Structures are given as structure tokens and as C-alpha cells.
């Protein structure tokens, strides 16, 4: 396998947990709620997903329960941030720490245990193409996640549901004045974000690296939050950021294997740094930022 083929084959999978979590956060933030507990919701989903898959040997069940765990934790956040109008930043951070703690607790008995990863599915014809063929030989979650990115783009830009979500995020007072139930819409958006974050965690622990190690989410929740902001709340740019991060993290592995004379910690931190710099450049376009920024993001809304 050539280096290029290795990167092409692995990039989509490496990007999937980030993209899945970021898409959930995108919907949450488009409705005007900033949930910084993403890292914790992913960590909890990872632990729950691993334990369930380990005991039942069903990846589907693992994903389902991980989604429920993500929803449960996001509802704790919603209770604080929407119900009691707590500061969203503080509430999100608290939920994040809680999720990471619960994750360690739940995963503890299975430390260093491994799972069988599900098989891959090659797209007929496309997978046999020269050069880009490896892109089309992935596990099913990868296809679903990128399909979801397209679906969310379509919903946000071309459906009434998307209009309502954006309206609630841009001006909740006006949305209420024309008769939308702002808090209810925000609650559903937060729960949706929680479900995707939980599944993103389960993907990381049961498919991408099917081995339980405490702290395995390793900041990917934070990268997902950054992807949403620097991707200027647009599904396409968020997917681009996730792919960039995926490709760079594989590039780092290859560089290490090839014995590049750089400390491994530096190589490991490179994808984080480069992704942030790239996205910061994209979002430095002030016009694009103004037109896409969610005006009421993070502001509590009464009523």
C-alpha cells in the first residue's frame, strides 16, 4: 500500500468522529445554544458504547445506547442552560467535566480490552478506481456520516425546518413574536447534538480504535467545537475542516513511522495546530463571518 493510498483510505474514518460531533453541535449552535460539553458527551458515548458492544457483541446496540447517553447528558445541560438560564459557557464546561468523569468510571473495568471492528463495505465500481479507489472502501458509519452532512446542509438551507432553526438562533424574540416555541426548539436541538456526540464517541471507541483506553477522546470534542466556529456554521466548511484534520493526523503517523527527526509529541500536535490555523484563515473573511454568525449564540432566553 502506498502512502497516498494509506492516507486516502484512512482520512474519512479519522474525520468521521469529528464530523459527526460537529454536525450535532452545528444544529445546537444554529438554534442559538452554545454547548461546550461536547468533549464530555463524546467521552461518555465512547465508554457506554464500548461497554455495551463488549457485552452484547452488537455495534448497533452500542451506538444506540451511546446516543441515549449523549442525549441524557445534553438534557442535564439543557436543564441548566435553558431551564434555569445558567451561563451556557459555565454549564457546558461543567457538563464536559462530568461526562469525562463518568466515562472513566464506566470504562474502568474494561481498561485495555479490545473489540472486533465491523467489516468494511466497498462501493462497487468506485472502489476499483485507480488512485482514489481506497476512498470507497469504508465502514458503513463513514458513509452515513458524510450522507448526514449533506442532509443537514440541505435541511438548513432548503427546508422550512432549517429556516425555523436559523430564525430561532438569529433572533429568538422575533421568533417568539411570530409564534415559535423557542425553548422547545432549542431543547430538541441540544438533544440532537447530544445524540450525535454520543455516537461520535462510540465510533471512536468501537470502530476507529476498538480498544478501551481512558481519555481516548483526547480533545476531539474541542476540535469539533472549533470546527463549527471556524467553519462559520456551514456544513461544507465543517466537513472540509474534519477531513483536513483526518488527513494530517494520518500524515503524522506516517512521518513517525518514516523516522522523521521531530519529537512525536510535536507531530501528534500538528493536526490540531494546522487545522485551527487553516480554519482561522477561512473565517478571517469578515463578511462571511458576519453573514453566518448565529446572532443570539450563548445568550439565555426567557419565555
Amino acid at each position, binding site marked *: 500500500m502506498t502512502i497516498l493510498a494509506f492516507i486516502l483510505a484512512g482520512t474519512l474514518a479519522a474525520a468521521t468522529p469529528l464530523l459527526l460531533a460537529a454536525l450535532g453541535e452545528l444544529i445546537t449552535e444554529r438554534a442559538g445554544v452554545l454547548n461546550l460539553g461536547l468533549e464530555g458527551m463524546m467521552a461518555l458515548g465512547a465508554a457506554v458504547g464500548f461497554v455495551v458492544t463488549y457485552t452484547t457483541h452488537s455495534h448497533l446496540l452500542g451506538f444506540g445506547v451511546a446516543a441515549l447517553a449523549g442525549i441524557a447528558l445534553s438534557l442535564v445541560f439543557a436543564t441548566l442552560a435553558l431551564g434555569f438560564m445558567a451561563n451556557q459557557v459555565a454549564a457546558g464546561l461543567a457538563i464536559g467535566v462530568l461526562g469525562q468523569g463518568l466515562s472513566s468510571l464506566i470504562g474502568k473495568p474494561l481498561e485495555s480490552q479490545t473489540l472486533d471492528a465491523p467489516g468494511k463495505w466497498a462501493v462497487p465500481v468506485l472502489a476499483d478506481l485507480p488512485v482514489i479507489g481506497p476512498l470507497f472502501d469504508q465502514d458503513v458509519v463513514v458513509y452515513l456520516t458524510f450522507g448526514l452532512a449533506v442532509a443537514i446542509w440541505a435541511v438548513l438551507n432548503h427546508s422550512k425546518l432549517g429556516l425555523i432553526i436559523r430564525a430561532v438562533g438569529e433572533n429568538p424574540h422575533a421568533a417568539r*413574536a411570530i409564534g415559535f416555541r423557542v425553548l422547545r426548539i432549542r431543547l430538541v436541538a441540544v438533544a440532537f447534538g447530544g445524540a450525535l456526540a454520543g455516537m461520535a464517541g462510540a465510533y471512536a471507541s468501537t470502530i476507529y480504535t476498538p480498544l478501551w483506553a481512558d481519555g481516548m477522546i483526547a480533545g476531539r470534542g474541542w476540535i469539533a467545537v472549533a470546527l463549527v466556529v471556524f467553519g462559520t456554521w456551514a456544513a461544507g466548511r465543517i466537513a472540509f475542516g474534519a477531513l483536513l484534520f483526518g488527513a494530517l493526523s494520518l500524515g503524522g503517523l506516517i512521518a513517525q513511522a518514516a523516522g522523521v527527526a521531530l519529537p512525536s509529541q510535536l507531530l501528534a500536535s500538528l493536526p490540531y495546530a494546522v487545522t485551527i490555523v487553516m480554519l482561522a484563515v477561512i473565517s478571517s473573511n469578515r463578511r462571511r463571518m458576519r453573514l453566518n454568525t448565529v446572532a443570539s449564540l450563548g445568550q439565555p432566553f426567557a419565555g
Partner: protein
Amino acid sequence: MAPLLQLSGVSKRYGGVQANAGIDLSVDAGSIHAILGENGAGKSTLMKLIYGVERPDEGQVLWQGQAVTLSSPSDARRLGIGMVFQHFSLFETLSVVQNMALIVPGSKGELATRIRDLGAAFGLSVDPQAMVHALSVGERQRVEIIRCLLLNPALLILDEPTSVLPPQSVALLFDTLRALRAKGMAILFISHKLEEIRELCDTATILRQGRVTARLDPRQGTAHDLATLMIGRPMPPPVHPTPHGLGEERLALSNLSFANDDPFGVSLTDVSLSVRGGEILGIAGISGNGQQELAALISGEIAMKSGAGAVQVMGQPVGDLGAAARRLRGLAFVPEDRLGRGAVPDMSLADNALLTAHGRGLVQNGFINRKAERAFTADCIARFDVRTSGPQAEAGSLSGGNLQKFIMGREMMLDPNVLLVAQPTWGVDIGAAADIRQRLVAMRNAGAAIVVISEEIDELFEICDRLQVLHKGHLSPSVDVAATSVEQIGTYMIGAAA
């Protein structure tokens, strides 16, 4: 036949404030009914009760003779009540047709057709595909009205609809409203502008301090009578300044251009003006035509990197200097938003005084002289008739009019060479507004150069010596107030003049 809408004994209290007390109101189909009152008289609260945004504490609402409970705006819409808000409830990042699609059923193609048809029928032309943030204020209002009309309301509520329109657009709006009345629609028209109500409305209900003080036919009385009923005492007389000798040029902009990289902002092109000591220059125009940018460029909030000579204060180039350096040269500034830029809401009046008056001995050796700070603040409160508990009161606790008087007082006590005031009487009651205008004229008579940016044409005609009009970032030539008319200024305001 029962009236279309009837309110009996409706009351609403917010904390310690009785916003509405025992209001009776009756609105008939095919009529235009005015609700007249000052800021804070309870007009907006009453409309929120009718539109279901708030629920009354007491009293009954009858719709076509039936008692109804309105617990949300969608309830009101289902009955056939539509409302055009004073601060528009449109979503700026969506297109016109997307804004409609949020509450009106139907495909985008159908909606776009209906928007064009209604526009043609009632003189409300607007491009359905345009993004709302790119529309002028007048166009946005048309969008709001069309959005209501798409739902075929029996009652249309308009909250201060003319406050954002140039005179020509007001005439167009009135034609539209008369056409709707002829179709049998009832219209509730909220305003504090007396002449408009006399021109348009069949009936008027006057509110003062949350209570109904009169019901009458506005075409019978004079504007003066209406004003007396509205504010509970005779109108303060206007304060036309008398001509007198002018001093030297104190503020000059020469061919100032500013490219704005904010897509919601306005770029200024080739703006020139000159103000001498002892005169008031008025900048007329609808908000959103570059007023904020012009104010920021004069005050120094936006400092230019090159071309310092385009802005001159007292003959010195200051274009590249920041706000503090310009203040040192004798420029004082009252911004349009009192809370946030004019004053810090959570800080005391004394600390707010310190923000711009620190050079007046309020700071010594880097430490605040609390005694001097308190004395300055108390002096300002006394001289400018600010109604407050004292220098330690939080700025945010004052009413709009009192806080505006305090900020104006603070800036005037600096004895500036040049005073820039943006929207001096926005949200200020009639009494306080008259007081503020008198003080501006007194300052002019004392020799200061004053620039007033305002969208109240009557106010500008009352106090200014000369006027220039800002439209889409272009500033018209200067005209003497004595030699012009509201119509001519209005022509400039919509950009119809060369």
C-alpha cells in the same frame, strides 16, 4: 353588530409598574383607530396583550362579540390579527420569501407570486428574492406588512410605523392603509405624531400613564388639543434659534470616504461638511444610511490609517487620531445608544461622569478623587434637571429621558469646542426632549459648534441653522433651514435629488 375587537377593563402590571390600568377599547371593521400616547404611556404593552405576546392580569378581550383568551401570537393570528412591529421581527440573514415561508404555508414559488401580486395591489413593491439585510428600512416595513397581509387579517396593528420613514414613504403607506380600510379591514395605528393621526385616523384613543384619558375623533380637535390630552399639560413652545454672528470653522470634513467591510454596514463616499462656532448643523436622513459610520468617523471611534486631513478639529488634522486624542482637542460626543456606549448601565452616575470628565480634576496622580467626582456629578444632576436618587444611582436605573439629560449634561459641562450629538431625543418623552433642544440652542448661542444627527425632521427644523442629508453614504450639499422645506429635505432623504 358587535365591534370586531373589544377590550374591557384590561390591566397589566410589570413588577411595580402599572403598564395598563382598566383599559376599555372598541375597534370596528373598516376603520383606522389611533392609539396615541407618549413613550411609556402603555401603548406597546396594550398591543402585546392584543397580539397575545403577553397576557392581561385582569379584564376581558372580546373578538366579534365572543370572549377569547390569547395565549400566544399564533392564537391571535388564527383569529385574524396581524401585527407590524416597531422593531421589525424580520430575520436579516434570510431572504424575503424565506421570512414569509416561516409563517405562511405554500411553496416558495407560490409565495413569491403572491408577494408580487399584493405589492402591485397595495403599492408595496419589494423583490421576493432579496436578502433582508440588504433592504432599506422602508422596504423592510413593506415586507412586514406583506407578511401580515398574506394571512388575510381582519385587524392589522401597526406600531409607530412612520418613525422610520421619509415623508414620501409616509404618504405611500397612508395610501396603502386607506386602500385596506376600503376593503373592510380594521387598523390599529399606534403613534405619537399628532398631524399624522389627524390626517389618517377615524377614531383616537389617548393613553397617559397606562390609562385611557380620552376617546375622540382626531379630525375635530387641533394638534395642540391632542398634545395637551397626551402629555397632560400644554406643549412646550418650540425654541427657534435667532441668527447671530458666527465664529471660526471648528469642525471640517473634506471629501471623506470610508469603505466599510461590514456587510450590514454602510460605506461613506466623498462626505464634506463644515461647522463654525455658534451654529447648529443638522444631519437629516433615515437611520441606516451611514449615520453610525459618520458619527464614528467624527468621534474617532473609527480612526483612518491615512488621509488625516480629511477630518479637522479646530483647524488641526485629526483623522488618524483615536477618540481620546480628539476629545483632548475639544470634541465632545453623545452617541445614539445611551446604554452601552453613552453610559455603562451597571456603573453609578458618578463613575459614568468620570469616563469622559476625568480631565476636569476628577483624577489626581492616577487616583480617583471621589469628592471631586461626586461634586461634578451632583452639579450635572442639578443643572440638567436629572430625576434620580443621586450620584450613586446606577445609570441603567434611569429612564431614557433622564439618562439622556445626564449624558448631554456631562458632555456640555466639558465646555467643548465641538459637540456631536446623535439622535438626541430617541425614546425621550416630549417634555425632556424640549428641554434637551433648548439646551442645545443655548450652547450654540454661547458659541459652540454643534452637529446634530437625527431622523426627526421636525426637530432638525426647529433647532438647526443649516441641514445636510445623508442618503446611502452620500451627504447632500448644505441648505439653510430658513430657505428650504420639509418636502425638499424629504426629496434628498430618498435620494431623488441630484
